[in-house]
């Protein structure tokens, strides 16, 4: 009995397996038809091929951020005259690999310390502990982190608290009376600036 009459008179289909179980009508199960199995195998094989072919671009697309993971570029921070000798100043530079929809996140903050005419240190604001923005206190010559209380000296070295190292430093260059840094990567313990 593969059909039933519902109260509406509409036939209700019962899903039955195509190959019926052994019974009075099917005394012995017939051997499987080889050609039907053959097409099934072709189907499985083709599907596997299609899946593999489709997964190449998908995986490549998903992993594409890794291609630029360590990409840094030289970028201008400002004229040398903006950085008085003996002082540490908070400033920003534009992220070298930015998109039109980055908005305010296209800018990267950093601290520029000028020790002498041609001697600089450029620190990332990100605390080496968990990345919170450290603040500079010129009165005591310390950088303090508001999150877990990491403290750094004016030369960026670790003073106290949980940070495992000093502040991350960007490479810098002087080009025609301008300060340039090599930026573009969020400084962390895995990729120090």
């Amino acid at each position: 009995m593969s059909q039933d009459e519902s109260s509406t008179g509409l036939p209700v289909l019962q899903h039955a397996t195509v190959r019926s179980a052994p019974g009075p009508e099917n005394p012995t199960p017939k051997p499987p038809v080889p050609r039907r199995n053959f097409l099934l195998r072709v189907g499985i094989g083709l599907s596997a091929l299609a899946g593999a072919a489709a997964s190449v671009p998908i995986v490549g697309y998903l992993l594409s951020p890794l291609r630029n993971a360590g990409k840094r570029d030289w970028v201008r921070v400002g004229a040398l005259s903006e950085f008085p000798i003996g002082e540490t100043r908070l400033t920003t530079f534009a992220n070298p690999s930015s998109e039109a929809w980055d908005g305010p996140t296209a800018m990267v903050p950093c601290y520029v310390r000028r020790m002498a005419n041609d001697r600089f240190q450029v620190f990332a604001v990100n605390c080496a502990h968990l990345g919170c923005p450290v603040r500079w206190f010129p009165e005591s010559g310390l950088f303090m982190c508001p999150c877990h209380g990491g403290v750094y000296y004016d030369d960026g070295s670790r003073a106290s608290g949980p940070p495992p190292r000093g502040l991350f430093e960007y490479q810098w260059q002087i080009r025609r009376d301008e300060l340039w840094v090599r930026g573009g990567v969020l400084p962390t313990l895995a990729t120090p600036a």
Partner: protein
Amino acid sequence: MDRWLSKVGKVGTWLDARLQVGGTIRDTMAHPVPRDTASWFYVFGSATFVLMVIQFVTGILLALVYVPSAADAWQSLQVLNHQIAFSWFLRAVHGWGSNFMVALLLIHMSQVFLFGAFKYPRELTWMIGVGLLLLTLGMAFTGQIMRFDADAYWGLGIGASVSARVPFVGSWLVGLLLGGPIIAGQTLSRFFALHVFVVPGLLIGAALVHVLLVVKVGINEWPMPGRLVTRKTYLARYQRQVHEDGVPFVPDAFQRDLVFSALIILVVLVCAAVFGPFGPSGRPDPRMIDIAPKPDVFFLWMYAALALLPAELETALILIVPVVAIAALLLLPFISGTGEKSWKRRPFAVLVVVLLASGFIALTWLGLQPPWSPSMTAWSGTPLPPRLLKERTPLELQGALVFQNKQCRNCHALGGTGGDRGPPLDNVAVHLTRDQLIRQVLQGSGEMPAYGDHLHPAEVAALVSYLETLHPPHQPAARVSAASSGSSP
């Protein structure tokens, strides 16, 4: 009227003849459940599910206006908060609904654990439930990023810093997390895709299978002490109990679910109306660094744990504890899949819940008022009480000035105000002699920077003179080193 009803009935019959779900729904409604599960202890799971639906509805409504672009997201949240009718309320319901959903999920999980419902034959229901916990926390974390403000921006920085600690693949994980080498436009876009497509899709699929299993395997009976679960006898006993002493799910058990879910929705609506939406705080502008980023309430315990761990254990614990915890939850039904179900005879289970709950509450409480964070404006913005300045010599007053100007107050409280990072110094002269004070100021310690290179000798002299005056009137300042006096015969 009757003609209308019969027309509706006809449409229903026509639809069901094709969909054929009416029978399943009727069977599910009528399926017998143990009489003792028609209880107020069994309402938390259904309420969590209902809140998930509320989150889907409000989330879709918010997505009609929200712009998932780093340049515009913050502005579109302002429009939602202030310009469109009722959209501030929908944001508030989405935010409060999220908090209540996580809270109810944790309560549901504790109840299921204490009632032994994870045991045979409901192992898979429990494991999918663990997946639902992770997915819900994933929604809460990615949702925090949708509120693209300064906390979200620096929160992503913290997420990247934690990922970077994974050995070998740290920098790859940071790149995959942020969608590039830095927090920018592509970061918000990928968190939007996670929050709106990936995680909700997994969540609804897993939740439906979870509910299906509850219906198929049957809801856990009220555990009786001494009635042990064995693989041989349990199923037959459960069937007997359901058929001899069962009640139909609707209405006997369902009515409590209905009442509780409705109450929870009302509470969420009242919270939303009274307390309003969450944020956004300041713009996600990395140039504005006057901020102490803090996670949302359900992640505060992690923030607190990260502050309190010893530095050398930090990386290991960040990376190992979550893996062990998730593995333990998933393996629980295989470790303790049979035997006693009742919490009355499982003191260890009760202890685990009590310890985890009190640890969670204590860490969250600490996270709300982080004593380990310096008070960044105490040095310039917090006045010294007059009693700590009266009858001091000019040198001592100069020392008080050094104390303020060198940011000592950011970590050390005086007169009950200032930072709590270091000890309060109201009575410091009782504990440390002049020499010890000088050494502490100049050399610091692991928890305090050394000021040797940053203070003029005259400033040190003034500061220490002031610190020496900080003792109660009835208790003199320490004269001899406490250590040496203790060791002398």
